[in-house]
């Protein structure tokens, strides 16, 4: 009997909802700034990942290997690049006309100008990673050649 009453209650609530509709906000709308926020969070995560990567290398036996030392440099440069790009995105939040014509604040304009040269950091970072990998490949070849020479 109690179960039957409970069923009526649920029916009444649902029927009431249909008679007096209201916005339920069940779906969240994603506005334009969300993209920028996500991108900035992405930069923070990327930087954190590279800090962790470099830290782990420094605290392991790999730190004695030249290739992994280069890899650490690459990771550190990527951390700096993320910081640079993050700042650049914040500075670019101003209106486009300010960006194109100057905000009137010379220091801010100069900072914004240099913040757009982030390739000066990310290209050397990739170069370090490339050199590290090349060293690792060369070391493997040497190791294999040494093994084959052994009688």
């Amino acid at each position, binding site marked *: 009997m109690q179960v039957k009453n409970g069923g009526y209650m649920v029916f009444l609530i649902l029927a009431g909802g249909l008679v007096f509709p209201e916005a339920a906000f069940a779906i969240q709308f994603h506005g334009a700034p969300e993209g920028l926020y*996500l991108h900035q969070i992405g930069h923070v995560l990327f930087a954190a*990942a590279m800090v962790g*990567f470099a830290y782990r290398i420094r605290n392991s*036996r790999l730190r004695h290997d030249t290739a992994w030392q280069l890899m650490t440099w690459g990771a550190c440069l990527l951390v700096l690049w993320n910081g640079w790009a993050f700042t650049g995105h914040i500075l670019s939040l101003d209106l486009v006309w300010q960006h194109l014509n100057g905000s009137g604040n010379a220091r801010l304009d100069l900072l914004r100008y240099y913040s757009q040269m982030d390739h*000066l950091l990310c290209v050397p970072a990739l170069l370090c990673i*490339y050199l590290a990998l090349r060293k690792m490949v060369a070391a493997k070849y040497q190791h294999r050649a040494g093994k084959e020479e052994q009688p």
Partner: protein
Amino acid sequence: MNFCFRFPLVCIDIVGSLGMIVLAALCLHQVVILSRQDRENPLNTYLFWLVAALFVLCLFRSVGHILKHLLLYTWHQDLWATIAPWSGGLNSAMFIVIFAVTLFFRDVLIFMNRMTSDRARIESTSKQLLSLNQEIETVVSDRTKVEMALNLAHEIRNPVMIISGLLRRLRRKNAENTGGSNGEYHHEIQQQINQLEGLVDRFEKMQQQARQAFSPIELKKLLAEAIENVRPEAESKGIKLVFSAQAAAGCHGNEGYLLSAFLHLLRNSIEACRSGSIIELRSSQVASGTVITLHDNGPGINAQVVSHVFEPFYSTRDGATGMGLSYVRQIIHEHHGKITLASVVGKGTTVEVFLPSHLDLLIEGKNSG
């Protein structure tokens, strides 16, 4: 912003973007070679995924940057407005992918460290096994040589003695009948027989010579070395090792062979025991030598198996040669010692080894006797 200021920015952006694509592609190429060289290395696999994610990020980002310049300078702002969110969104997604990949770096390093230490341990164990095997082969080879020599000596001695005796009687008879005219032939034959007897004596001395390589051994040191050798194996299985030895305990023998024998006994015990078991190795001095007792509280061996454990080629384990305990007994016998094994199922196994303390005197006594 005038052209003079904008030009270096555009140049750096376009050249940098192209440079990133080239460098990322080169990185990917190197990491593919690296992972192909050693597919089982988890660090290489990890680097492959990290560099692959970096490559995709660089590609999306650089293509986005170059496209932006191209579209803006050709007055296609609308098209760029459509593409820009995709380019930015993909970049953001790749940041998160790189973050996710990097989370595993710690685990990969732990895994690598464990692999390295395991490999070192396996190498050290296999070296020990190899040396043990070589020592056992030497023992068996020496023993076989001595046994062959003794058999040969035994087989030759009897006929030679009979021939020698018969020849003496023949010489005597011949001297009575012919007045010793064939004496020189008899003398020649006797000389050859003497040579054969000398050969038999040399064969018999071989066993004695084998024992001349024996030297005084401090048993406490030897047993402690054996215990330290097997400690890592015992600890990895969660087995406790207890060791106590009398300082005075010593014997005369071959240190390498005896160490091999005790290592084998200890390893057998570790293999049979489960985690939480205790293996005790004790040595005590008795009047004529030293008694070494190895006791474990493992699962034990049933009586039917106990009676065969020292037989060659007898084993209850898959892949085992069944020669181990037979070699151990051989080594103990070489030292004029005794070995016994007693076991109760569910309670444990006890191996008792007796080694005489004055083997050199024992051998001398035997030889003179």
